[in-house]
């Protein structure tokens, strides 16, 4: 559906040339939810804006739905843009128009007759769950509702691709989840290809099939979300993965525990996919004469399987503890003994 080949974007600024996007190659399939994660300034925003021609690459080609976006201009580009929806971090709604009129705007642009427009707008309002708010102005809506209007507007012309530019970054966690659920629902129902950029690993974890990690204009790591979670190779990816796997307090709790119980061992177990469903802890207690104290744990669901981590504190006879650790290392979980720092 989307192919990006050898794309570079160089901005000339007063302080010289800045390479925002540096030689990127990507292929995104139809119906896929593809995430791009990176810190601000990594070039992800420039990348997504090249997909609908808001930026043109300095070199390389961008093809969306069979059309080379990076080459076409004028009427042809406008036509192509009508088939690519986009939603924004700050929603970018017209405050002078009601919800209904905002959603109708892209239909006015594409020249849909009024009667048909009204019908389509009503369908879209139902799709995004905004019944009853049709005649409200954006200023009367909450952030989540505004983004729902943005989504309905982006879907008005039945696009093949939906671009999400930090679409949930301005929303609270609960609203973020509701909007993400809506995006997954739309992806499944309409078979829509979704490209999203974000700096929150939570968003990638929750809805993306594949992820590309960007740093300084380059894609440094890419693959199915679960694989990237399982074995993040780059330090930046490891940091992003930690965002969702390690709770803020983990480190403090463990330090506290190590201080309190100098004997025994604290082990971090990482479960991926099917191993998350095996009764490893039960086996551990049954086979070894040790006490197992669960310190902290978390299991997250990704689009391609479960992923989780568990901290356990093992105490008992020292030799027995050693054997228990050896047992854990043989299982289909990765385990890591944490000692005094």
């Amino acid at each position, binding site marked *: 559906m989307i192919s990006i080949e050898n794309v570079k974007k160089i901005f000339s600024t007063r302080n010289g040339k800045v390479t925002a996007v540096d030689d990127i190659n990507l292929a995104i399939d139809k119906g896929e939810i593809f995430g791009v994660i990176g810190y601000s300034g990594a070039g992800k925003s420039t990348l997504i804006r090249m997909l609908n021609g808001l930026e043109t690459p300095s070199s390389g080609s961008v093809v969306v739905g069979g059309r080379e976006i990076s080459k076409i201009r004028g009427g042809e580009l406008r036509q192509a843009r009508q088939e690519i929806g986009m939603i*924004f971090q700050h929603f*970018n709604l017209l405050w*002078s128009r009601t919800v209904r009129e905002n959603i109708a705007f892209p239909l006015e642009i594409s020249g849909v007759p009024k009667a048909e427009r009204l019908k389509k707008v009503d369908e879209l309002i139902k799709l995004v769950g905004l019944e009853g708010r049709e005649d409200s102005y954006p200023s009367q809506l909450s952030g989540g509702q505004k983004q729902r209007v943005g989504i309905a507007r982006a879907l008005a012309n039945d696009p093949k691709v939906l671009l999400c530019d930090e679409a949930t970054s301005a929303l609270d966690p609960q609203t973020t989840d509701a909007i993400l659920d809506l995006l997954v629902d739309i992806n499944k129902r309409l078979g829509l290809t979704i490209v999203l950029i974000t700096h929150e690993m939570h968003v990638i974890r929750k809805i993306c099939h594949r992820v590309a990690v960007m740093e300084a204009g380059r894609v440094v790591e890419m693959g199915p979300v679960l694989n990237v979670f399982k074995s993040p190779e780059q330090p930046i990816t490891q940091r992003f993965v930690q965002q969702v796997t390690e709770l803020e307090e983990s480190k403090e709790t463990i330090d506290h525990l190590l201080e309190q119980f100098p004997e025994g061992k604290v082990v971090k177990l990482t479960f991926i996919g099917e191993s998350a469903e095996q009764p490893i802890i039960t086996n551990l207690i049954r086979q070894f004469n040790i006490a197992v104290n669960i310190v902290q744990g978390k299991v997250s669901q990704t689009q391609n399987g479960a992923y989780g981590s568990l901290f356990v504190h093992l105490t008992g006879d020292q030799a027995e503890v050693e054997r228990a650790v050896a047992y854990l290392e043989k299982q289909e979980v990765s385990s890591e003994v944490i000692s005094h720092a």
Partner: protein
Amino acid sequence: MLEQWLPNVDWEKMWEATTETLYMTSISVLATFILGILLGLLLFLTAKGNIWQNKVVYGVVSAFVNIFRSIPFIILIVLLIPFTKALVGTMIGENAALPALIIGAAPFYARMVEIGLREIDKGVIEAARAMGAKTSTIIFKVLLPESMPALVSGITVTAIALVGYTAMAGVIGAGGLGNLAYLDGFQRSRNDVTLVATIVILIIVFVVQLIGDLITNKLDKR
């Protein structure tokens, strides 16, 4: 009672002068609104980083606006005498005041239009572009509606300035309340005429402000 306090006021003349002032003001406000929006849009669109980015056009329009905005109105009328004569055929009467009023006010208003347009969130314009909107669609469906409260409050301020300009134009023969206050009031030492003419002008200004505020509030859905 009125005759006792205001012995010299000829109410028929006062009414006639008022309609002349209203006529000059409304025609020039209308023309300024249209011309100012055109110039303002041109300034906004040709400015750096915008759709029609063009240094030359921006420079020329900007210089034109700055020059005509800077010339004191009373001097502008005099400077425009040949132009007005060629256009209207006379220097006397309400119509003769119109060219100077419009040329004096439109550049002033154009700057306000430009400021109003600049206040529109860039993201909204970008969203319209991302939907495949043409420039004309962006102008008529995004730029003008989104800046309408600023455009209306701007034209309110300009209209009030224009009421003042008509009074100045009146002094050199354009008719209206300024003419009456100066010739009948000041030059013949009839202070009551000047006073009443002033009060009428104040009423016009208050009404214009009131209407402008009402429309702005009604339009502003932010």
